[in-house]
């Protein structure tokens, strides 16, 4: 749009853009400060963390490698276990819930059957159910089945993703045309083949969005694994760092070394997600609008 404006007008609009950009710059600083703090302080030893005067700048000795080594060797390398658990839960929960949501969204969007509208309203209503209110009841249910303190206790409840179904239905309704499906059926393709070869490729942007969002939600989940797991070998990294933090603050004096592990541990744990978001930008930026435009 700007390209079509004459030069003078463009210069005026450049000048007009100064104040908004200043505001943006201030906001960018605000949003970056905690991350900056984390990156800087990951280089410090426990003594530097407590003793330094400038917490927003490097101390004399910069020791990322030493801190990383401490992080990965502390308590028999439990941190690496936590990272692995987080990845397992996020991948299993994310893939599973996305597959289920894609199938259901397609079913709701492209098939007419009795009870469809009723069940879809039920689903929309369930988006309103506070999911954390389900955690304690699910815990008790799982405890009766002896499933608590297993990986299933985290993965299985993560399969529930009503909002994902809603997004997939809206998207499939727009992106997959009935004529195309009918044509495939006339050509003799079965329902499954029609779904996999015709519908699914058209739904790909929404699939990636739902997958990314559900993996992030599982990776970030805290309440569910906190309630379900007591064996710290099964913790995801969020619960593990939470544990370290409460240990470190419980013995204020003796916990020094743990504080520096928490800082660098937090930094390491966000790297996978930041990379995922930056590299998949074009998918989620488009995909996030699906729900809001309707």
């Amino acid at each position, binding site marked *: 749009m700007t390209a079509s404006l004459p030069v003078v007008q463009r210069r005026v609009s450049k000048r007009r853009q100064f104040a908004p950009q200043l505001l943006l710059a201030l906001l960018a600083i605000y949003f970056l400060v905690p991350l900056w703090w984390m990156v800087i302080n990951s280089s410090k030893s426990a003594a530097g963390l407590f003793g330094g005067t400038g917490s927003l700048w490097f101390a004399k000795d910069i020791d990322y490698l030493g801190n990383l080594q401490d992080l990965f060797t502390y308590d028999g390398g439990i941190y690496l276990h936590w990272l692995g658990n987080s990845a397992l839960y996020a991948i299993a929960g994310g893939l599973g819930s996305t*597959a289920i949501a894609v199938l259901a969204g397609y079913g709701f969007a492209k098939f007419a059957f009795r009870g469809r509208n009723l069940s879809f309203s039920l689903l929309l209503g369930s988006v309103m159910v506070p999911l954390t209110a389900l955690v304690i009841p699910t815990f008790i249910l799982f405890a009766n089945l002896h499933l608590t303190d297993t990986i299933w206790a985290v993965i299985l409840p993560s399969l529930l993703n009503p909002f994902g179904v809603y997004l997939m239905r809206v998207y499939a309704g727009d992106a997959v045309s009935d004529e195309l499906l009918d044509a495939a059926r006339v050509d003799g393709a079965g329902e499954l083949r029609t779904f996999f070869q015709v519908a699914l490729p058209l739904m790909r942007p929404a699939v990636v969005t739902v997958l990314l969002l559900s993996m992030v939600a599982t990776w970030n989940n805290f309440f569910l694994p906190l309630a379900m797991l007591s064996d710290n070998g099964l913790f995801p990294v969020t619960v593990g760092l*939470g544990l370290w933090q409460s240990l470190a603050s419980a013995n204020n004096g003796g916990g020094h070394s743990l504080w520096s592990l928490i800082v660098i541990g937090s930094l390491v744990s966000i790297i996978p997600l930041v990379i995922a978001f930056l590299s998949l930008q074009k998918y989620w930026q488009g995909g996030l*609008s699906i729900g809001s435009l309707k």
Partner: protein
Amino acid sequence: MTTASVAASSRPRRTPNRPLSAGRRAAQRRRAFTGWMFIAPFGVVFLLFLVAPLAYAFYLSLFTKGLATGTEFAWFSNYIAAFTDPSFLRGVGFVVSFSLVLIPIQMLVSLVVALILDAVTTRFARFTRLVIFLPYAIPAVIGAIMWGFLYSPTFGPVGQVFSLFGAHAPFLLDADHVFGALVNVVTWQWAGYYMIIIYAALQGIDPAIYEAARIDGASSWQVALRIKVPLVTNALLLILVFALIGTLQFFTEPAVLRPVSNGGITPDFTPNLYAFTTAFSYAQFNYASAISFALGIVVFICVYIFLFATRKRGSFLS
């Protein structure tokens, strides 16, 4: 708000009163069966991990467990206890007032940023968009831990800035400041996500509308307030509902910051935290179920009040 439009747009085009041959009816039945098959996996998950826990929680909440009496059926006495329990009521009061302060701030920040980003198209603006969104990719636990550090009088910059002037920094997580401190953490964490949703909706508007408005002499302020904002109302409502549901269930940040708050955050600070403590520190699962269920009821009521209020106002506007 969304149900009606979705249901209407995807209703089958075939007119139902046309007489159907036996073959067509069989085909239709087959299609219906296939539809159900596609939905079945979700249906199973829905029943197992939503309906069953809810039903079971409701069942459990009808019993009380005493040391002397054992477990016995007690009708709704747990609910009466919950809705007269000062801990629960204080928690509900907190999350409701927290929502009333937090959500307008969050909405305002994300809307203003989205409007600026929609109008300013420099490379710096694109960079800012990513930076502001970044906290969404960071687990709430990590966000809370980081802010806990920043607030800390021993390692945080707040304490150091104050000590430069020889003053004592206020401890931002004590009972007097914890409200604002938490508003800040949550705004930092979520504003970017909401901003992206609004921004995506703004990008979906046909730019021809702006051209028309400019020819009519509208300033960019007028375009923003009179055209852009009304056109993204749906996105704003969606965000509001999500923010409301999320905030009423507030748990992670207070749970993480509690150990470092020196008593500023109590175990009954929010209803969810209270339910968690009741279940896992005191093993009172019946009462904890009742609190969870009661919180669910509170969320439902708040969301419906909100949807009802906005639907009324929505019809006024249009």
